[in-house]
């Protein structure tokens, strides 16, 4: 796939986009069918073999958790340059995603093309995380991948948290002393931003004034915050009140489809870029659902060449809200994400089952 053909990311209209996506996904379907035996096996047994597909709805998919149970690679081992693993909460098997040089490069480039739309120039960057999460000490996981991906938009990367994920307010004060009069970029995982930045500052009675033009991008999911009933609105208001940070953008993305992320616009909805898309399926029947109806999100991306991750049925719940007509002006489907399927409860005679899952 040639990235240039798909740029800029938010200008392609539905008719053209769908036709091109379907064509490209058919190519990818064949590509992985030819090169990844487990993928071919799944497409054979779940979708009755390989056929030319005429719509996103009929494109074969893999359940995203399959990357936890099966090694899925479409490249010879010697071409693998990087294996990414999901952060994975304790006791859970992480996803493993194999990247060759080409896929890794195209992922990095697409991320740039998207973020450029929100952050036109390089800025001093504050990372709400610890340095150890990117220097390899904690493995190459989703958090590291995200920080490194976004680090390209920053200069003088300053990590707010210490090894124990506690905020170092003196470091922040120094950072603002240096850059307090110019545009700043703040990046972090959603729950870290909330717990270790917003909450920690209010507990410590600290207030900081970020420059008006500061942009914050955060992602990684709302699971932990939803448990505390923290809404996106409260999240944004708190950042504005406590830090004066007014341009806050969430993004939805996953380690299985790095690069093609879904950024939140000023309207508070997530946007599909030209080279990615979503549909929503009923959690009851897997039927494709119309707009404004919540269900399981299926994501498409034309980027994955080294592993069959171009069409994934996620365990995230959400609804698509419209296409090409968001007041922010961006084309493409826009949607929101509202939680995940809960983890299935274990019953049965055996403790071993509990250990395995």
């Amino acid at each position: 796939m040639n990235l240039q053909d798909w740029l800029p990311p938010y200008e392609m209209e539905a008719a053209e986009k769908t036709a091109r996506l379907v064509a490209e996904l058919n190519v990818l379907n064949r590509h992985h069918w030819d090169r990844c035996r487990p993928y071919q096996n799944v497409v054979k047994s779940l979708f009755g073999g390989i056929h030319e597909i005429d719509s996103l709805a009929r494109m074969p998919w893999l359940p995203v958790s399959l990357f936890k149970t099966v090694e899925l690679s479409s490249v010879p081992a010697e071409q693998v340059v990087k294996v990414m693993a999901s952060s994975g909460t304790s006791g859970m098997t992480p996803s493993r995603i194999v990247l060759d040089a080409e896929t890794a490069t195209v992922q990095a480039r697409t991320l740039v093309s998207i973020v450029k739309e929100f952050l036109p120039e390089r800025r001093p960057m504050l990372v709400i995380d610890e340095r150890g999460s990117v220097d390899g000490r904690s493995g190459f996981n989703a958090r590291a991948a995200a920080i490194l991906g976004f680090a390209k938009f920053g200069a003088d990367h300053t990590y707010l948290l210490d090894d124990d994920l506690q905020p170092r307010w003196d470091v922040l004060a120094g950072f603002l002393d240096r850059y307090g009069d110019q545009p700043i970029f703040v990046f972090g995982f959603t729950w870290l931003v909330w717990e270790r930045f917003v909450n920690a500052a209010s507990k410590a009675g600290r207030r900081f004034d970020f420059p008006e033009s500061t942009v914050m991008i955060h992602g990684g999911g709302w699971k932990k915050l939803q448990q505390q009933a923290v809404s996106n609105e409260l999240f944004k208001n708190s950042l504005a009140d406590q830090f004066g940070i007014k341009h806050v953008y969430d993004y939805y993305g996953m380690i299985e489809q790095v690069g093609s992320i879904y950024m939140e616009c000023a309207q508070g909805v997530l946007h599909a870029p030209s080279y990615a898309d979503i549909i929503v399926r009923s959690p009851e029947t897997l039927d494709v659902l119309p707009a404004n109806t919540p269900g399981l999100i299926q994501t498409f991306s034309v980027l994955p060449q080294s592993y069959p991750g171009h069409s994934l049925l996620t365990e995230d719940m959400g609804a698509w809200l419209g296409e090409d007509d968001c007041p922010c002006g961006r084309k493409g489907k826009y949607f929101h994400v509202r939680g995940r399927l809960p983890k299935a409860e274990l019953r049965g005679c055996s403790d071993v089952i509990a250990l395995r899952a």
Partner: protein
Amino acid sequence: MSAMVTETPEQIKAALASPQRAWRSLDPRAVAFCKQLSAALLKSDAARSAPALMALGFWFRDGGLRNIEPFLQHHRGVRMGRGLALHVTPANVDTVFMYSCLISLLMGNINFVRLSDRLGDEGRLLFDHYVFPMLRRTEFEEIATRLIFFTCPRNHGILAELSATCQLRVVWGGDETIRAIRAIALNPRAGEICFADRFSFSLISAGHVNGLAPTDLERLAAAFLSDVKLFGQQACSSPRVVFWLGDPTQVEAAKRRFWHAYEDAAGRALDFNPAERMARLVDLSTLAAQGMVSQVLGRSQHYPYRGELNQLDQSVRRLHGGRGLILEITAADIASVAGLIRESDQTLTVAGIDREALIQLIEKSPNGGLQRVVEIGHALDFYPIWDGQNLPELMSRTVSLLL
């Protein structure tokens, strides 16, 4: 969990210092307790929505006498409890171990039951609302000293102390737990009953299904469904693989009929919630990706639930997570069914297979394989011989009295 009834290891220690005496088997005081527990379960609305608790209540409706007495052959002697019994129970099957605890009580033992701190909803309901409150009543004061529940880590010293002094140790698996507990030295004179990891099947005659009248077919499908639904199809006895007996044409026709009736009985959600169905889908996809399952089916491809097995090896048994997942394999004759059975296999639920053929199958099965053959619909029915072990016999002793 109500602290009033769950004892600490220190209290267990104290109880061990002056142990109770074993009773004669089927002592009326033990029978009365089981009978009252049963009555409480059977008349409770809360238990009514928990089929496993209703089944427990039903089994002990006369205190368990009718079920157990036939297993106590009369020797020339006095049937007694063995003495102190240590029960190590599993985390996930909340209620099945209660059968063995109560049988042990009925046989006359003093029972120390280590409960998991991860009891599920049905287990909490059973203990917090029925068992514990009953044990607090003065009328069951004596029973409360012979049915003692406690929790402790798996490596706690009290388990070693109990193992060294008890006359009977009952361990509910999985295999890992059994290995860990077996490493703890057991009183050389004690008996041990272990329930290891098991896998179970159905064996259906295609010709039988093809000949069934519609209402009988419906009944069979509904019975199969009820076996699948109990414990989320994750119990050792839950049927997970269907062996179809017949020639390929017969089997094709039988499958079409049977699964149509099954899907009708189940409704399209198959009674599992979306998270469970997603987990099932991941299992099926994993099996397919690894080439163990060739064709995955389910009405209109919506939440597929069954797959055609290419082979049935141990990894299929390991990867099968239940939750409505059905794997199928065709067998031409009884000998080829026997060839698929492994040492780890437990229950076979059957439809349309005659007794002679089943005896053949039992004889041809590998050592240790196959413990139980019952009709479809009875996969989870408790029976005093459980997992091939005669519980009333093993949980008691006969003092010969040859005068």
